[in-house]
């Protein structure tokens, strides 16, 4: 008996020594469910089917990007196991899939789940389970709320910060503007409107002459445009989704209304909005962006853009490289890889959130020059900078400096 204990003691001493020497070489390895020496399990939920299935491209781009990372050796030697499920943009299904990922597949975190209603459905669940709901793919402002929801973080600039930027610009350059607002009657439209009002502050009541809303079920918004024109406004704040944005640009030209036209980033796509509306009708429209546009010849020789195009050609050749969704998926996946790199060997959920809230001047090369990703324990809005751009000829021209606007949820 004594001999056995002696042997055990020796063995454990030896083990302790090995462990000690290992820990001097690298920080001690710590894992939560979903991470091991060889693998990191990442969950994801996307609408691959249903009305919002166009966004499914984001998930497929991310899967392709993690494949690239794995072929290049993974993150700190660990392969990423990317498990992506379909929720068809239906919140109850999102709950089922999130629970499957967390409780059955046992992922380390859920990454870039898409849509405001689906993410709202799992918001409370993820936070009570203390599983990171990282870089959600929606621009709602409520994701930046570290105090009440410390396990949830957005990625893209939130809707409110964008209109705040327009408001700042207007106050500086056109303080006597008479603003006509057209917005979609849902959370997205209202978020934008709130940002505008907050940004204008006390002058909001006097500067905004009309707030007009439309429903997505309306076939055309022509009558709204006519009504806006009749108010004599000289600034048009166009908070509409692509189909309606194109209609608005066209109708403006038809009835000869030429206000200073602000178009929200949601509809700033040259391919799906400006070209159908006609380049001649879209001159001098102002918008804001944070990502490089693949179609823009300015980035033809840009190393970041070249890297993206090489990735698309090699790992996702069936994908549309001009699609906004592809470049978003690429950028957000790069941000996650950066977070995992920073985590080192401490792959606990707590450390994942800690590192996600500790991004300092990080850039993925598909962001516009000057825009950086910064987070802190009190700032859960990774991208809160945008650059203004004006439509000239057949492309957007950037103007002015990088503008920041941090808005909490």
């Amino acid at each position: 008996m004594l001999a056995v204990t002696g042997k055990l003691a020796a063995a454990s001493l030896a083990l302790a020594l090995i462990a000690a020497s290992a820990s001097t070489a690298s920080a001690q390895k710590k894992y939560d469910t979903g991470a091991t020496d060889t693998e990191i399990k990442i969950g994801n939920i996307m609408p691959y089917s249903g009305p919002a299935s166009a966004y499914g491209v984001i998930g497929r781009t991310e899967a392709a990007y993690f494949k690239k990372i794995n072929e290049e050796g993974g993150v700190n030697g660990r392969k990423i196991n990317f498990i992506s499920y379909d929720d068809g943009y239906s919140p109850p299904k999102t709950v089922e899939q999130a629970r499957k990922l967390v409780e059955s597949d046992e992922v380390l975190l859920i990454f870039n789940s898409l849509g405001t209603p689906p993410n709202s459905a799992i918001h409370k669940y993820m936070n009570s389970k203390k599983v990171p709901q990282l870089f959600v793919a929606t621009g709602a402002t409520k994701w930046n709320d570290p105090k009440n929801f410390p396990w949830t973080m957005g990625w893209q600039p939130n809707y409110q910060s964008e209109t705040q930027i327009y408001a700042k610009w207007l106050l500086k350059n056109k303080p006597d503007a008479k603003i006509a607002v057209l917005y979609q009657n849902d959370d997205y439209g209202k978020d934008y409107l709130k940002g505008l009002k907050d940004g204008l502050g006390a002058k909001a009541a006097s500067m905004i002459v009309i707030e007009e809303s439309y429903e997505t079920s309306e076939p055309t918004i022509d009558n709204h445009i006519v009504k806006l024109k009749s108010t004599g406004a000289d600034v048009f704040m166009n908070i509409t989704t692509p189909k309606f944005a194109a209609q608005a640009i066209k109708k403006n030209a038809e009835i000869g209304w030429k206000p200073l036209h602000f178009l929200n980033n949601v509809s700033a796509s040259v391919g799906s909005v400006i070209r159908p509306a006609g380049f001649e009708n879209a001159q001098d429209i102002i918008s804001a962006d944070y990502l490089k546009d693949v179609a823009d010849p300015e980035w033809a020789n840009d190393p970041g853009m070249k890297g993206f195009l090489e990735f698309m050609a090699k790992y996702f050749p069936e994908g549309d490289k001009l699609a906004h969704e592809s470049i978003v998926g690429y950028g957000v996946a790069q941000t996650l890889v950066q977070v995992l790199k920073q985590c080192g060997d401490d792959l606990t959920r707590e450390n994942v959130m800690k590192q996600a809230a500790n991004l300092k001047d990080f850039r993925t090369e598909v962001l516009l020059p000057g825009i950086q990703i910064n987070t802190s324990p009190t700032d859960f809005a990774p991208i809160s900078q945008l650059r203004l751009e004006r439509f000239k000829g057949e492309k957007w021209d950037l103007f002015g400096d990088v503008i920041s606007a941090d808005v909490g949820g």
Partner: protein
Amino acid sequence: MSAAEDVVTEAPAVEAVPKRAMTLGTGTSLLVLAALLIMPVFVKNFIIFQMTMLLIYGLAVLALNILTGGSGQFSLGQSAFYAVGAYTTAVLMEHFNVNYALTLPIAGVVCFAFGFLFGQPALRLSGVYLALATFALATAMPQLLKLNFLEHWTGGVQGLVVTKPDAPFGLPMSQDMWLYYFTLVVVIAIYIFSVNLLRSRSGRAFMAIRDNEIAASAMGVDVALYKTLAFGVSAAVTGVAGSLGAIAVQFVAPDSYTITLAISLFLGMVVGGVGWLPGSIVGAAFIIFVPNIAEGISKGLSGAVFGVLLFLVIYLVPHGARQVAILGQQFAGKLRKN
């Protein structure tokens, strides 16, 4: 059958199911019940959650079965009743702090009224026309929930988050397990009620209307009353399912209750066997699990794979689970004889 009658009454779209064939034998029922009671002890919380959803969708399919299998009326608008039930519970729980268990009967009553009222104009319609009218209801519902003047209560597009109840009396049970047993009790109670309803005088009236309206009215059945009553009962049961769904999912939003849900429920009824009440659970299992299987086979083509699987089921067993059960029974009977 005279030519005149041919014109007046179309061939019944729903096959006449004798009322005895609508339920399971006692032995089988007890076996299923025992399995449902014991199962949660052995599985993970996630599976318990899925089983809860299975019961809830099963209840909603059952409600449709009472309407279509019982009284022969079609509805593609069940998602609207489901939504009303879910929102009733969510609003009562979150704005008025009503106990979750109390919200179920309230949701049932609200939906009964809603269904009964909807049944009034629906009386003038039959077959595909009725299906279309209910379809309109299902399409309109998500937009109605987004209306501005309701937003204060419904939370608009953002929806409402519902708090999940803990097990009462300090029972050593997870929230999921408690909710499962709670749901199970409600579902069994409603199942027994439905079986008895269909065996009662009212049930016979439903079936008489289903089989031949003119004959039913000649026998003294108040066709208008019983048709609307069937709508009311079906809506009430769907509403209770919606309430349970809201508590289980912990979230309600207009996007949860689109026409897709109504079609899923319809699909569940057909796969389970129209007019066969136990088939409702089989149908619910089909609409919950088969999309997951389809997704496992091919992510990009999950919809197409689901279509192929559905096609196979309809082609091989056109009467759904009921047919499988009957075949099984015959097979067992043969074995016994030998």
